[in-house]
């Protein structure tokens, strides 16, 4: 595996941990942040981070 693949795999592990591990329980409760409900805000934030990180990791790759 080349470094980009390894980093992408690590990103997937990060996503799995953020979405499907008991860590989700931290945000799975009533509450709000910036006027938004906590869980949806958290999920969309992580999702955005994953997309941006994937862009960052693959941007030097062959187009």
């Amino acid at each position, binding site marked *: 595996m080349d470094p980009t693949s390894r980093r992408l795999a690590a990103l997937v592990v990060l996503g799995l941990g953020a*979405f499907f591990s008991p860590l989700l329980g931290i945000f799975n409760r009533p509450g709000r942040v910036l006027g938004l409900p906590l*869980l949806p805000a958290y999920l*969309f934030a992580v999702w955005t981070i994953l997309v941006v990180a994937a862009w960052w990791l*693959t941007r030097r790759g062959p187009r």
Partner: protein
Amino acid sequence: MSRTFWAAFLSLGYVFNLFALAYWTDWARRKGRSPVDNAWVYSLSLAVYCTSWTFYGSVGRAASQGAGFLPIYLGPTLVFLLAPVVLRRLVSFCRSEGVTCLPDLLEALYGKGQALGTLSTAILLAGVTPYVALQLKAVGYTFDLLTGRAPASGTLNDAAFWAALVLALFGALFGARTLVASERHEGMVAAVAFESAVKLVTFLLLGAYITWAIGGGLASVFGRALERADLSRLFTLGGSSGTPVSEWMSLSLLSAFAVVLLPRQFHMLVVENVREEHLTPSAWVFPGYLLLINLLVFPVALVGLLEKVGGSPDFFLISLPLSRGHTILAFLAYLGGFSAATSMVIVASVALSTMILHHFVSPLVLRRWAGRDLSVHLLHSKRVSILAVVLLGYAFKRWIGDSHTLVNIGLLSFAAVTQFAPSVFLGLYWKGASRAAALAGLLGGAAVWAYTLLLPSFAESGWVSMSLLRQGPWGLELLKPQELFGLKGLDPWTHALVWSAVFNLGLYLSVSLLRSGRSGGDLPVAASGAWISRDDLEDLLTRFVGASKAREVLGELPERALPQALLETAERCLASAVGTASTRMILRSYLAWPRDQAVEILDVFGGVTRTLAESREALERRLRELSVLHEASRTLSRSLDIDTVLREVLGLIQREFGFDHLAVRLLDSTGALRIRSHVGLHEDYVEASSVPPSRATHFGTCFLNGVPVIVEDARSSEGNPFFRMLSLRVPVTAFLHVPMFHEGRPIGVLAAYTTRGPMHFTDEFVGLFAGLANQLALAVVNAQLYAEVQAYSHAMEEKVRRRTAELEQANERLLELDRLKSDFLSTVSHELRTPLTSIRSFSEILLRYEVADEERKRRFVRIIHDEAERLSRMINDLLDLSKIEAGKLELTIEPQDLAGAVAQALDVTKPLFVEKGVDAAALVEPSLPPVLADRDRLRQILAKLLSNASKFSPEGGRIRIGCRRRGAYALVSVSDEGPGIPPGRLHEIFDRYTQVRDPQKDHPLGTGLGLSISRDLVEKLGGRIWVESKLGAGATFSFTLPLADDPALGGGEAADGAAREEAEAAG
């Protein structure tokens, strides 16, 4: 009515636009530009994943289950992050195998047989047709919702029906342009990518409108929702939210697999992939698309719930603008949903029709109409299949009516395709799985899927009794479809996922592990078609894919491509057209044709082909022979040792031509043909067959006639004595002797024997063998010459070595002489100085002092006289010595009476004896003849020996002189009773200046030259001198002289050596 018209007009116009776009794309492609060859287009076309179920259903699901709509997109997001790694491998594998659909992939992975492909196609059809129905249903429902008319009851006034027809037409036109699916459907891809853009833009527009124009902004929407308990529950998982955590997990897993394995996804991902590099940007573009299209789902659902718009939450996107009177926006929403539905229907129907063609139609058609031109028929069947799939979907839609919500049907499909995950993903990475395992796993998984998901959904629709769900079949609680084997407390999706994993993965793994290796896979067809030509294949391909395509596919190969390469290309092309299993059948029957059919038809072509094949074979053989010759000559030049050369060349012949027994006979120095080197012969035979060449033997005949002797059936040679002896040990059935020629004359015979029955040696082979034999002959001669040169050079070296040793010895002797000379000089000068010193000192005393005492004076003078005498003696000795050394000694050899000589010598030495009181007695044999000697010298020798003896004799001792005859010599010996000579010094007693010192006296007793001079003189006279002694028991000096009466010894140098030898023998 006008709204109906506008809605219909808009839909048709939109589809027309798609046709135009697709047509333009295909046109551009033919012009050489490919608008689709672009990573963005590729990623957008993958968004066919977002169907009307996403467009409408997500809102509905969010309204009822909150965050529960998200797993459907989170799973694919994570999968696509790995697109450049995992999916790329899948894509490249499929492209290399000509795989165009999921059943094809399974057949490629697990060997080619029809069962697996047919089963997979059936499962996918069953799993995906409802999904197509769902899309059509959404189109029909939204059309009715938008136009405000009553839900259509018939077929002809159902918008979904017309949509189905138009979409089927689109699919048939742009999804089945040619049969070879490896040529991508670029028009369709462009349309789908366009549709993905449309649905994203419309959703975002509508979402923004609903959130901000109706809901008053994000903060307001969420603020109001959070204040309501029934709405704020939507923002968490588990508990009362409607989405259990287990479902969160299992839906993510299902959708992660579905995003790859759903027929439309697989088709877009694999078949429509222009370059594998496009997968890399898709790793973030596709997840980004999913993120954007879901961004406003929550607000839309919340606004719909807060505003209490009536109707299904699924269609808030249309009902909300309508409730505000914004018809245009409602139309826009309808258009977005329509685009989502149409793209899914088009791609899914094309993908399914490929499977149907490959796994249902082709096998049947090929069995029936093998050998005809099928290209047009196959293309038509594909188009018909597309139409059939879409209409099947419509029929299903009519059948299910309103009983299912959108979401359930979609997830049902997801669960169905998930059953393929073990066999696809494990099959790609694990080589241990078998076809049986894949079949078992698929069957088990599909059964679980049908029982735990399909059956309950039928029950909920009222087609099956609900008691089946509540009490289980036949009242068996354990078999309740939603609580199978007592597994309770899980949502239906997790429940189904667990059990299908158990059965699917369990069967797959256990069957794989129990039945080792991949069964069912055959050797590639290409291996068996070596004779096939480019034209043959073009004919064959034309029958399935049309002439132009066939020419194009084969035209990509180089002019002189090997038959295997042609066949592989044809196989790939056919596989993408009719599926791998059918391809196999086609090629097998095609390749088998010349064997099964009447051969005479092929006579004309066959003859040509055969001649070509033969000449090719001959060329190959010739090449091989040349390479053997080449290797042989390399071996020959590698070594000059004859036995090594022969052994290696025989080994080469044995290896290359498969002879078990080989021999090289060479003519040896005795004139016999002797086996010099051999392979596999018995030593007895090797010994016995060493006979001079004669015509009684085969090898002799070969040698004498100089022509090869070939015996192809050795039974004819049984009378030959040597052959009988040979065949006792080795059951030879055929053999071959060829002469080894060097410069036109035979020097030996090379023989090869085989034991594998009678054999025909071709002329080419005999020629090659003869060539090898001549090379061997040359090598043998070279090796012999080399050996001779070696021997000569060894001899030369030996000679040089000997001469060098001699010279060294001579040099050493010279050095020694030199040293001796120096020693001699220093000793002589020392010896001369001693008497001189006495003479000078006593003469000085006499000169300087008055010596009154006459007696003393007289004594001094006597000392001076004695010392002067001693000095003159020494000088005489030295003169003698120098004469001897210079060879100037003049001897007058005459017969001498020995007795007289002894007496004279005794007279001379008498004073010495008297002085010491020594008694000397001579005993001379009376009849002793005279000896040949120089008179003075003989006396000198005797006097020296006598004075020497008296010198060492003790007071009153005896000296005996004996003379007697010994052969042709007289032996003279002088014995004393002195202290003797130590044995270690006996050999040096005759050396110059060697003195054995008297142990009682310090000063030397003589010049030390006497014995040496005596030895030289005796040897000059032709005799020999030596000494014998025992320490403490006296010494005996003896010498011999030739007798005068022997006529042979007339004196002189000529007889000297012989005389000496005899004397030695005597001594």
